[in-house]
């Protein structure tokens, strides 16, 4: 049964309120979309048109020069390679980090809920704390440790960092899911002689597919968008794309090319935006789980 909206009344008053409602909602749609539209339209303008026209006007002549430049010739600091190599850095970082942290979080959440042993809840609470620390508190020791193991400035080092600090969140997601799965299923499988891993891979993982999707999307977005770890633990050509984008924008030599900046920003944001458009609902579920409302 559908809810009787509060504004759902009869007559002219109802109609006016309804119009006002849509006007406000529409206005906010424009406000939220404005920066994206400005980015796209600026990226398609020539520098000449940017200098003479208004930032909000649509391009009179569409040119893709800025996109080409952002992709392979724009200067990131002193190296003029465009964003391309850094996009690959991010891909090489994000794929293993998401896979490992999701898998470990799933096993962890499963072990902590379906094989309740003494101290399981305490272990979970202690691990969950890691999801909330400001990462500044681990930057100095992490930099030292990565240096000690020869991982400073490498993609492997960054994968390690993202896996370790993503684990608290992935464990949280899977624990919240597995808590809701009936213990009876696991008990029955145990009586049939199935062990820890067979139950996990054959029984639990297939049930957890929606949670896997939520976790993968959450981790992908977090890690792709990360800036702090990227700038602290990588140098020059091992930078992820967010750091490279910031360097392009901050490059102060020569004429400021706003169209190239905007094209680069869109390129760097495209993967997460694409995932959001494809699977927005799963993203929203991750966001609400992130508020620890299981």
């Amino acid at each position: 049964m559908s809810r009787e909206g509060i504004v759902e009344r009869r007559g002219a008053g109802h109609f006016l309120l309804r119009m006002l409602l849509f006007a406000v909602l529409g206005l906010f749609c424009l406000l939220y979309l404005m920066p994206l539209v400005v980015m796209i339209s600026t990226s398609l303008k020539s520098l000449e048109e940017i200098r003479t026209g208004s930032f909000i006007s649509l391009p009179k002549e569409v040119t893709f020069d800025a996109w080409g430049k952002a992709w392979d010739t724009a200067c990131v600091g002193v190296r003029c390679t465009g964003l391309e190599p850094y996009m690959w850095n991010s891909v090489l970082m994000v794929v293993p980090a998401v896979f490992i942290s999701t898998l470990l979080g799933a096993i962890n959440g499963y072990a902590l809920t379906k094989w309740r042993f003494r101290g399981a809840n305490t272990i979970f609470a202690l691990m969950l704390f890691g999801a909330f620390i400001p990462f500044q508190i681990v930057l100095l020791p992490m930099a030292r440790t990565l240096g000690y193991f020869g991982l400073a400035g490498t993609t492997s080092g960054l994968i390690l960092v993202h896996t370790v600090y993503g684990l608290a969140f992935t464990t949280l997601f899977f624990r919240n899911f597995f808590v809701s799965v009936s213990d009876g299923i696991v008990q029955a499988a145990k009586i049939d002689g199935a062990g820890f891993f067979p139950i996990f891979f054959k029984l639990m993982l297939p049930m957890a597919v929606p949670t896997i999707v939520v976790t993968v999307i959450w981790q992908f977005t977090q890690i792709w968008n990360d800036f702090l770890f990227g700038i602290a633990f990588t140098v020059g050509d091992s930078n992820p794309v967010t750091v490279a984008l910031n360097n392009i924008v901050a490059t102060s030599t020569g004429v400021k090319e706003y169209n190239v900046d905007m094209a680069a920003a869109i390129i760097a944001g495209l993967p997460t935006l694409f995932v959001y458009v494809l699977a927005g609902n799963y993203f929203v579920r991750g966001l609400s789980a992130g508020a620890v409302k299981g």
Partner: protein
Amino acid sequence: MPQLAKKPTRAVALGRLLERWLPQIVVSPLFAASLVFVYGFIAWTVYISFTRSGVLPNYTLAGLLQYERLWATPRWYVALRNLFVFTGLFVAGCMAIGILLAILLDQRIRIEGVIRNIYLYPMALSFIVTGTAWKWILNPTLGIEKFVQGLGFPDFSFDWLIDPNMAIYTVVIAGVWQSSGYVMALFLAGLRSVDDEIIRAAAIDGAGPVRTYASIVLPMIRPVFLSSIIVLSHIAIKSYDLVVALTGGGPGYATDLPATFMYAFAFQRSELGVAAASAVMMLVTVMAIIIPYLYSELRGARK
């Protein structure tokens, strides 16, 4: 022969033992990693903050020296003041807009899904990406200023981005734009959990829409207020990339937050001790907010 028969049983027994302890065996390396990388590293940073460390780590204890130096640094006070201004306005702005949009979207709108996705897409983007966009929109010569001048107000001036007194408010604008959709999503979910009958009863009793929401519906979803405010404060205290992308902490260090302060002292000025002390201050602030919250959440979940 008896010896041969004995071996498999021992293997089976060992296997059983392994199987019995397998959950613990699987969890312990992950738990150990968390102990080392979270708790161990926190202890390490706290320790550095009590030493003489300057450009290089120096593990001689020096009491509260670094904290005294931190609290004698004018830049730290700028960062703290900005943190209060930013957190206050950011949380208030996101809550106001988020709640308003959630209530409006709750009125049986047919294209609700589309509108919701438009309000929420900024959350999928990196602060570096959106910061770059806002930097261009707020550009003092070519952005909003020029646009409004073109509308027929030639004296209009909007240079907050390069005005040391106003630049922090540009960070608030971009932050609220990015995160208010999140609050909208949390509240919309909360509103959906309220029983329709209660709202209908209120309408029958003659309560207008504003009163129904203000004094009946919103009080019922009080926990959503709490978790939204906690999550937003947490985002605000950790804010680093938005400031870097939008203002770079500038002009000068006018838009420094503790997060950018810590990074600058750790990696640019190589004042490891002061950097560690500022990181500890950040952790203490976050803990003061998060631990009571987590405690009540976990206790509530166990009931």
